[in-house]
């Protein structure tokens, strides 16, 4: 594959921006990070090995720029410890005092079918937005960037327990939202 030309880089800009906004939750910061990425790509395109696609290569650069931006932002807005309490409260609210589900998780049947449905993705994106920004940041580092517990804890200076509580909270709110807004209404997915 040849070096990416200016047209190639520009073409991928929209995708890179979407990816960065999803991760950073800050449009302005995302625009800056994408600019840095494209600049780095322009300067480094002679080094492009051709082994991956342009998109994959650019995304790789972008991921590093995003981590840098998160690190800088982390120093400016350190995660406060009392935030843990609100996460724990949010989790507690999902269960009764004796530890049972307030909203018993239903059988979603074959949920993978929904991945082919455009309407599902609209609901999915809406449910993803419900997380508080701090929780979302952590969730995306884990589920989208696929960083390990150690990597995330190191980047954000939190403990594994802090991390797991946040991820659990995120998952509980997501599954509840998806069940209410999508799977709960799908009669064909409900089994006894």
């Amino acid at each position, binding site marked *: 594959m040849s070096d990416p030309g200016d047209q190639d880089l520009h073409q991928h800009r929209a995708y890179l921006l979407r990816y960065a906004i999803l991760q950073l939750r800050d449009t302005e910061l995302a625009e800056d990070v994408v600019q840095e990425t494209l600049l780095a790509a322009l300067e480094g395109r002679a080094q492009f090995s051709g082994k991956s696609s342009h998109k994959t290569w650019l995304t790789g650069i972008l991921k590093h720029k995003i981590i840098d931006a998160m690190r800088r932002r982390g120093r400016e807005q350190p995660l406060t410890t009392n935030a843990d309490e609100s996460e724990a409260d949010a*989790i507690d609210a999902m269960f009764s005092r004796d*530890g049972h589900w307030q909203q018993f998780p239903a059988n*979603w049947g074959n949920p993978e079918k929904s991945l082919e449905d455009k309407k599902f993705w609209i609901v999915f994106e809406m449910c993803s937005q419900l997380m508080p920004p701090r929780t979302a940041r952590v969730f995306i580092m*884990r589920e989208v960037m696929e960083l390990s517990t150690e990597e995330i804890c190191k980047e954000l200076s939190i403990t594994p327990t802090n991390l797991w509580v946040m*991820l*659990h909270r995120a998952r509980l709110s997501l599954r509840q939202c998806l069940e209410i807004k999508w799977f709960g209404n799908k009669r064909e997915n409900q089994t006894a």
Partner: protein
Amino acid sequence: MLPYIRGRIFILILPFRLSCKDASALLSQAQERALGPYERFRLRLHLILCNGCSNFLRQLDFIRTAFRRHRDS
């Protein structure tokens, strides 16, 4: 005779039983780390008895799949 034995075994396994709140937390953590053998034992016992948490487990896997699909499309 049988209900007597069953009742006694039930009392024996009580200390191993997890609440749904604890089970769901373990299931979530299992997405990030390997669970120890005691944790797995307690979890498996709970999942046999609890459809809600079994459903939750499948939902966790689906959520992970969905985010990766969303990222890669």
